[in-house]
């Protein structure tokens, strides 16, 4: 049994010393666990509260100087095609990647994850299944809590790995089918990308639906700047996740994007991709086509 890591609250040490286990598994999942030869040894969790108000540039105010991206991430500039119009006219706009937000998020998530895995190691666990990952922003304070929890499991007579245990969001029958399909879970994967949009005149006119004097550009058209940002924020998170797979596969992925509007023409897009990193341990051996049935009930 590994030494109790230093990073955990004292309460965790007491809970583990107790001996009996708790688990977040339903009865069906618990049964499936035992079918697989996995034994639950305890409920484990990791927690981290991060503040990144200090990291963002949004304090600069809306509609003023857009940030000229020098961080080496995605940057795309948009020039006004109208020529000098007025001080109100947004002659220049920019999309850029907010690396500092992504870094802060990653720190928070990784802290929570490694604390959960430390708890698992303290129990001598082989892996953690049924992971639930929640992020709760504390409204208006710029603080986000990361909370990860799962059920630590061991495999009888098999040495626990010397490095971090494996982990997966799956449990129960869905996990059993992963093994039957020839995959072994490696770890959960979650990542975010953040893109800020400072609209230039054309985007502004299209979003407001005004053609105004510039009906050539304010008429019916694709809103290119926002489309670029939307597609890029998804591409960025996918590339980041792909490069962290090191050749393994991502199964049961979930991709979602949220949009925040700070002010007119000042948007922040955040994409989040999570999934199970899995690896093939045996050759592709497909089951025959399933037998179709009609249920009479």
């Amino acid at each position, binding site marked *: 049994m590994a030494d109790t890591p230093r990073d955990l609250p004292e309460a965790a040490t007491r809970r583990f010393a107790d001996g009996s286990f708790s688990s977040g598994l*339903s009865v*069906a*999942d618990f049964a499936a666990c035992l079918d697989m030869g996995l034994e639950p040894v305890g409920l484990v969790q990791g927690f981290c509260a991060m503040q990144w108000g200090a990291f963002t540039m949004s304090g600069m105010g809306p509609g003023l100087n857009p940030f000229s991206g020098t961080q080496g991430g995605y940057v795309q500039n948009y020039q006004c095609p109208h020529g000098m119009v007025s001080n109100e006219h947004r002659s220049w706009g920019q999309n850029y990647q907010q690396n500092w937000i992504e870094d802060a998020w990653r720190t928070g998530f990784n802290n929570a994850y490694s604390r959960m895995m430390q708890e698992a190691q303290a129990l001598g666990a082989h892996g953690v299944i049924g992971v639930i990952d929640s992020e709760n922003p504390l409204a208006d304070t710029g603080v986000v809590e990361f909370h990860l929890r799962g059920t630590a499991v061991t495999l009888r007579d098999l040495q626990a790995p010397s490095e971090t245990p494996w982990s997966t969001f799956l449990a*129960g*029958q869905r996990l059993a089918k992963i093994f039957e399909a020839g995959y072994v879970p490696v770890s959960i994967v979650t990542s975010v990308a953040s893109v800020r949009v400072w609209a230039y005149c054309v985007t502004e006119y299209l979003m407001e639906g005004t053609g105004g004097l510039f009906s050539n550009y304010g008429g019916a058209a694709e809103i290119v700047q926002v489309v670029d940002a939307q597609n890029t924020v998804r591409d960025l998170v996918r590339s980041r996740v792909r490069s962290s797979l090191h050749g393994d596969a991502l199964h049961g992925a979930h991709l979602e994007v949220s949009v925040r509007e700070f002010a007119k023409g000042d948007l922040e897009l955040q994409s989040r991709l999570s999934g199970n990193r899995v690896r093939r341990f045996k050759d592709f051996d497909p089951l025959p086509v399933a037998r*179709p*049935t*009609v249920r*009479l009930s």
Partner: protein
Amino acid sequence: MTNESNDLPQATEHRLEELEHGLFTSDLSVNEFLLIKEVGFHPVGFVMGSSIYHTGIQTRKWSQSQELTKLTEAMYNARELAMTRMEEEAAELGADGVVGVRLDVNYYEWGKDAAEFIAVGTAVKAEDGISRLNKLGKPFTSDLSGQDFWTLRQTGYMPQGLVMGTCVYHIAHRGLGQTLGTTGQNVELPNFTQALYEARELAMTRMQDEATRLEATGIVGVRLEEKSHQWGSHTIEFLALGTAVTKTSDDVTLAKPTTIISLDN
């Protein structure tokens, strides 16, 4: 394909033409599509009919429980119009029947005195070329799903038509006053009981009459819906719906089903 002048708007003509030239559309799921094919039917086209109808509430005696006959007629006629147009679309396509029929009522900004009644479904045609039109010479309609249609065919029965009976009933207000006197006691409320009983019976009887007109052997999948629509809680529409069927063959091909216990969550 009929050339009789029908009730359908211009826009429909063009759409149905495309369907007659070989493209089929269907709102059946993939499972339902495959099961329809199993029993020798092919989807021809998504068909629909609608009618915007004036259904304003009529004056009634507050103290008496009674059927509001004008409203009953309105609700019935509106749905009939929608169904008839849907059947006409199916007939245009040379279909034998319509499966998966859904009846909906939409209220828009124009308030509670008018509503749009819609009937939609997928028109199907028998692949063996034998006509399956019902006793009235029209395509059969049914609210059966693809799975239920397949199962019905296994029993040797054929749908004849979606049958419905409706009754809009007003429940007396004085009846409510009387009940307040009996609050706290375990007692039947005769006024309510009588009213609801009569309303439901009327709806079911009318539905059965329709089945008789189709010379059906029976009705399957009967359900009774109760809605207040936009009239307040003392006026309720009772709608009885089912699919009238007749026996077409003595062969029952439904094999003994296998029993299973699912291991999925």
